[in-house]
């Protein structure tokens, strides 16, 4: 008896899949924005010249980049709740994803900041710009342009990693798949379809990233 593919399970549960995909996008967006904030703070610590701030940032980055995300997630969800800090699975998921993304983006943002020549900052001072203006116009925007490609690939990785939070029963796309699989046993159809949904999400993100790059950092091509 061979196995015949039956995709009706997809069509019958399309609503579930869409809800799951939206949840995944919400999860990704929240945690990436929070993580980016952490990354900027971390990068400021790394480049501050203050030895203590620098070591704290280094420890943060190296610890979270050299341990698996699943362990970090379990640590936040099960570990913290055992010492009295209870979180819902969704909160733990956002926290773990944000902190993980923050570690990666710290290094990316730092590379961007260090890529800005000292002479440029001095030129800004000579023009009489204040500290905030120098940071925004001379450090931040060109640095963003420099780091944009690596940031986008890290964002794509972060989106794919949201699937891991299904393991603490946070209800996103992968969780929907496991739930439907356990009820219908149509595992190949369901997981294949979900893989395609992730692929589509990734493509949309990459395409919009390309369009944004052309719109906002297009000027940088001429600088190089």
């Amino acid at each position: 008896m061979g196995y015949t593919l039956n995709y009706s399970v997809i069509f019958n549960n399309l609503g579930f899949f869409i809800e799951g995909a939206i949840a995944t996008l919400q999860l990704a967006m929240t945690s990436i924005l929070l993580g980016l904030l952490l990354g900027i703070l971390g990068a400021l610590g790394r480049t501050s010249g203050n030895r203590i701030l620098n070591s704290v940032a280094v420890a943060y980055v190296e610890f979270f980049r050299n341990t698996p995300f699943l362990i970090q997630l379990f640590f936040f969800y099960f570990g913290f709740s055992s010492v009295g800090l209870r979180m819902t699975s969704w909160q733990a998921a956002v926290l773990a994803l944000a902190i993980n993304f923050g570690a990666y983006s710290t290094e990316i943002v730092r590379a961007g900041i260090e890529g800005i020549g000292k002479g440029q900052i001095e030129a800004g001072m000579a023009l009489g710009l204040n500290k905030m203006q120098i940071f925004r116009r001379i450090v931040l925007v060109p640095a963003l342009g420099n780091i944009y490609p690596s940031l986008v690939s890290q964002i794509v990785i972060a989106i794919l990693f949201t699937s891991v939070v299904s393991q603490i029963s946070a209800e996103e796309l992968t969780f929907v798949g496991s739930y439907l699989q356990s009820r219908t046993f149509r595992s190949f159809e369901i997981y294949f379809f979900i893989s395609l949904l992730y692929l589509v999400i990734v493509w949309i993100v990459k395409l919009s990233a390309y369009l944004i790059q052309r719109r906002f950092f297009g000027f940088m091509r001429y600088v190089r």
Partner: protein
Amino acid sequence: MQDFTLTNITYSLLLATRWTIVLSLIAFAGGGLVGFLLMLMRISPLTWVRVPSVVYIEFFQGTPLIMQLFLVFFGISVLFQINLSAWEAATIALTTYTSAFLADIWRGSIEAIPSGQWEAARALGLNYFKQLRRIILPQAVKMSVPPTVGFAVQVVKGTSLASVIGFVELTRSAASISNVTFQPFLVFSIAAVIYFCLCFPLSLLSKRLESQFVFE
């Protein structure tokens, strides 16, 4: 008998670490082999050779590793009516995952070789494979070592996801021990430290190789 001391927990976790290491080595060796073939296909001048590798790389880089594990473990076993063990499924999924990324890393180093090198090799009368083997690869390999070592860290961390299909390695055994001892904070901390000891030296090595390369 149910006496879990700190030493006990650490010892059990270290025993499970063996399987993390074995799975990482298998995935890296298998992924390297498949990845090399994929890379050859990817840089081929022939479209019909190139397209399958592009699709393969795009699929495995654009979908979550967890989904690939599910597809192999649950999907393939119902589709072909064969029972894959967690071992086999984890090996297959991690190999395909690793190969897609390594192929892309290596393609990058090959494309970084100036095209003049290809042209010079052709001018010497070498055929395509000789150009590749004698002129291009020796230069590209040097360049590809740091990112390859860096990716090894991702592979070690990736093996933790094999726990979701029931493969007993470090993460799985940490989860089971924490279920019995009710000490998730302690158990996952130890597991994290063990992973860190596996991954951090690789990260350092990758960074050092990279800086050596720059100063050369």
